[in-house]
């Protein structure tokens, strides 16, 4: 493996705590000699090692699996959620920047009222958990595992449900949306459960509760622009939002629409 390196200029959002007002800090010295084979997070690891050597506070960022399946990492890189590749930040590699001749990189946390900054690039995405708690589940008595194939599901529905279930809750949809809307996330969860027989019993209540919670925690509305879907690492489509709208209208008509279902 050749060692093609790049010298970067990083503009990173630094914020000591949620109470601090924060600001951008530029790193040049620490971002020299970055291998193009590194992932974006490995690049930040290298920068942090140099910061620690200098006895400075390392840049805080969220990460866990580093294989694109957990949804923990997520940064606004040069104005695009998860950067120039449609993938998670951990799966973004520095060679993409090398190929595009980009050496100047601005890194910001997700910006939304519902995603307050905890420190530097780490945001609190508890608002997503609250939406899930409001109805992103099915109520069944657990017991021994059911027999295989006891509940046949058409292949097409299973595939669509899987598309919705592939959402890892990274929050890129909210970050990219000009309205800071969580409709793609919420609709993926509603669609995933609503497409399966197990999700039918609570289908109307679920959509009413989850949409109420989504509005309550401070996300914006949808303007059908499609930025969310374009940055979604799991490529979840706008058809899930249309499906959620359809479910909400139907549930409102069926339930006489009380605010608290």
């Amino acid at each position, binding site marked *: 493996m050749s060692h093609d390196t790049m010298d970067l200029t990083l503009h990173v959002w630094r914020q000591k705590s949620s109470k601090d007002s924060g600001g951008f800090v530029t790193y040049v010295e620490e971002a020299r000699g970055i291998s193009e084979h590194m992932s974006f997070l490995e690049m930040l690891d290298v920068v942090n090692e140099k910061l620690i050597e200098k006895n400075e506070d390392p840049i805080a960022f969220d990460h866990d699996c580093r294989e694109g399946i957990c949804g923990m990492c997520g940064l606004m890189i040069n*104005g695009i959620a998860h950067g120039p590749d449609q993938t998670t930040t951990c799966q973004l590699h520095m060679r993409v920047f090398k190929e595009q001749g980009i050496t100047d990189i601005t890194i910001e946390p997700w910006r939304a009222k519902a995603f307050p900054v905890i420190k530097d690039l780490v945001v609190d995405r508890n608002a997503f958990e609250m939406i899930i708690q409001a109805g992103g589940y099915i109520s069944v008595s657990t017991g021994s595992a059911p027999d295989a194939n006891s509940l046949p599901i058409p292949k097409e529905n299973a595939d669509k449900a899987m598309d919705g279930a592939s959402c890892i809750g990274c929050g890129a949809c909210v970050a990219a949306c000009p*309205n800071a809307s969580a409709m793609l996330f919420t609709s993926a969860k509603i669609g995933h459960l609503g497409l399966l027989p197990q999700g039918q019993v609570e289908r109307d209540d679920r959509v009413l509760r989850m949409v109420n919670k989504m509005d309550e925690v401070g996300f914006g509305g949808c*303007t*059908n622009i499609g930025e969310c879907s374009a940055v979604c690492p799991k490529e979840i489509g706008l058809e899930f939002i249309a499906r959620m709208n359809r479910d*909400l209208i139907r549930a409102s008509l069926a339930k006489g629409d009380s605010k608290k279902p």
Partner: protein
Amino acid sequence: MTGIASFYQRSIGKKVVMALTGAFLLFYVVVHMWGNFKIFLGQEQLDHYAEGLKTLGDPLFAEEQVLWLFRIALLAAFLLHIYTAMQLSHMASRGRPVAYKQRKDVQANFASRMMLLGGIAVLLFVIYHLMHFTIGVAHSDFVYGEVFNNVVRGFQEFMGIPAIIYIIAMIFLSMHIYHGAWSIFQTLGLNGPQYNGVLRGLATLIAVVVAIGNISIPLYALFALSPVEVTGWFQSIAGLFGF
């Protein structure tokens, strides 16, 4: 009533209101354009059409009753569309109190980003349009009932500047419709991967027809061009851009 109120409280409820009022306004835009095409049939036909609008619904309704009922419905839809847009835009700005230093659009097209500004442009145009051709206060030579003459003179006065304003406004309206017409189906949940292409195509068709159809009227007033000739113009302009 509580049902409707709590439905409207939701973000999606507001979007549904945008879609339904938008659909009604779009229906009006198309009908209005179709009626105005009478101008190409000459003075007599256009004036007769305008006069006939007053007796719509005759004999069930008295003179101007249907006209005013329709105007009230139209105004209600228009105001509701604007009010809901203001509320949604307020929700959106509240949703992101700290702006990004850098933000790039990956997917959004120009029309979809211009919905708010373009909508405001259309609102200003509607006010001018009413003052120009309905009330006549923005018209130097307005004679009530002489629709054909009012239109032709109204576009020609002030060196054709009104005609230019109308043409620019129709481009804004057309862009608004391009994103809005498709959004009606998406918001009402009537969209899906199998229909998306058809609906995008339909929205494009309506937007182009509204633009060319309406723009051909001031051009006719200025240069007495036929709609066929205007369409030919658009084709050659589109050809220059490689469409």
